[in-house]
């Protein structure tokens, strides 16, 4: 059989196999592995003869199919096990092909939708909106992940690094998280429940990155103990609110 097609039109080895199954009128659900393997091997060999570059993914599937074929050629001493192996290989490949075909079909639905949407246009938001907008009072803790909190912390550290670019400090005393929690609690004890502090304000007395980190860890601890709640506003400012138990 002559192949008139280039390998570029396939999205990968599975796509090529589906094409071979279709052109050879094989039944995907009762797949004749021998025919598929022979066709696939012939196809890749021909590609090689034409000195086309073949992506490694095609070759690794090729190796699998050659292994399958060679096992069939070898004399079988343990016939039962071999048959199980064949059935297993076949089932695995069929399952992969079916799975791949499902998404291939779904992608044609997406393609139509995408092309439709490309023909309909919208405008940018009203040009003055940027000037009007003021920081919104987001609901506490809603839709904010720990990931965002850690990102915000990274920015705070970055800012701190920018503020003191060449300063070196010898810290004699390393502070523990518990100590910092105590310090913050002492600081907060003068305020009533619901008072809002920015993370920056809590870091005011920090003299080193170590202390900033301890402050952050202390806040995490206190949030965990429900002594405070947090929220993040635009520009990654962290705010904490004092709760009853501190």
């Amino acid at each position, binding site marked *: 059989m002559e192949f008139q097609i280039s390998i570029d039109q396939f999205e990968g080895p599975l796509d090529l196999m589906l094409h071979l199954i279709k052109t050879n009128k094989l039944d995907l659900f009762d797949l004749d592995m021998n025919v598929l393997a022979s066709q696939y091997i012939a196809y890749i060999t021909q590609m090689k003869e034409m000195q086309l570059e073949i992506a490694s993914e095609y070759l690794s599937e090729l190796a699998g199919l050659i292994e399958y074929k060679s096992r069939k050629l070898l004399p079988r001493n343990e016939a039962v096990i071999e048959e199980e192996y064949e059935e297993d290989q076949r089932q695995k490949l069929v399952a992969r092909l079916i799975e791949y075909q499902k998404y291939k079909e779904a992608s044609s639905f*997406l393609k139509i939708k995408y092309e439709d949407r490309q023909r309909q246009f919208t405008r940018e938001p009203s040009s003055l909106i940027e000037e009007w907008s003021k920081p919104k009072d987001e609901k506490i803790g809603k839709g904010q992940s720990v990931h965002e909190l850690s990102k915000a912390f990274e920015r705070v550290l970055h800012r701190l690094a920018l503020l003191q670019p060449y300063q070196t400090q010898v810290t004699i005393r390393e502070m523990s998280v518990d100590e910092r929690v105590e310090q913050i609690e002492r600081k907060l004890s003068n305020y009533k429940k619901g008072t809002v502090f920015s993370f920056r304000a809590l870091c005011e007395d920090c003299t080193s990155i170590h202390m900033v980190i301890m402050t952050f860890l202390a806040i995490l601890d206190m949030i965990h103990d429900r002594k405070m709640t947090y929220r993040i506003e635009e520009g990654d400012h962290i705010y904490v609110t004092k709760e009853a138990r501190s």
Partner: protein
Amino acid sequence: MNNPKAIIEGLIFMAGEEGLTKEQIHSLMDDLSNEEINTLLKSIEEEYQKDSKGFELAQYASRYKFITKEFVYPYGEKLFEQFKKATLSQAALETLAIIAYRQPITRVEIEEVRGVNCEMMLKKLQVRGLIEAKDHLDTIGKPLLYQVTDEFLDAFELENLSELPSLETKEVQEELFAQIKEE
């Protein structure tokens, strides 16, 4: 409020491509009930469906926005001669399909289905804002978990992912029936 419907219409116009959610409208016009807002949105939508209007009210990813009607496109094409028509390759569409149906999903899982390396493709799709990697799977190597974005929903005219057609193909069903018969 003299004419809440006209106000909502104006607000959606102002919001442009970002669109407005029902919750946003509600927070701006708190003397309207959710039901009233629904009715008003429905009425705007119907009004703009008429052929006498050049744009229509769309709802993608829970956001209402005005978009031009499809029949405007050929004329717009003439107006802006170099209309950039963004296209997506078959490989991109397949990758997006797998993520949309199976999200959150790791790169390795996507590659298992497609049988090819997807690293570059995932980067490209991330740059286009169609997918994002928000979390890590809690396993060896902490692989990134990919999922589609609201921009994806907008680009494919979807209100949410449940609007995707079911994956079960006819053949699969037939095969199931065949199995039952055999048994």
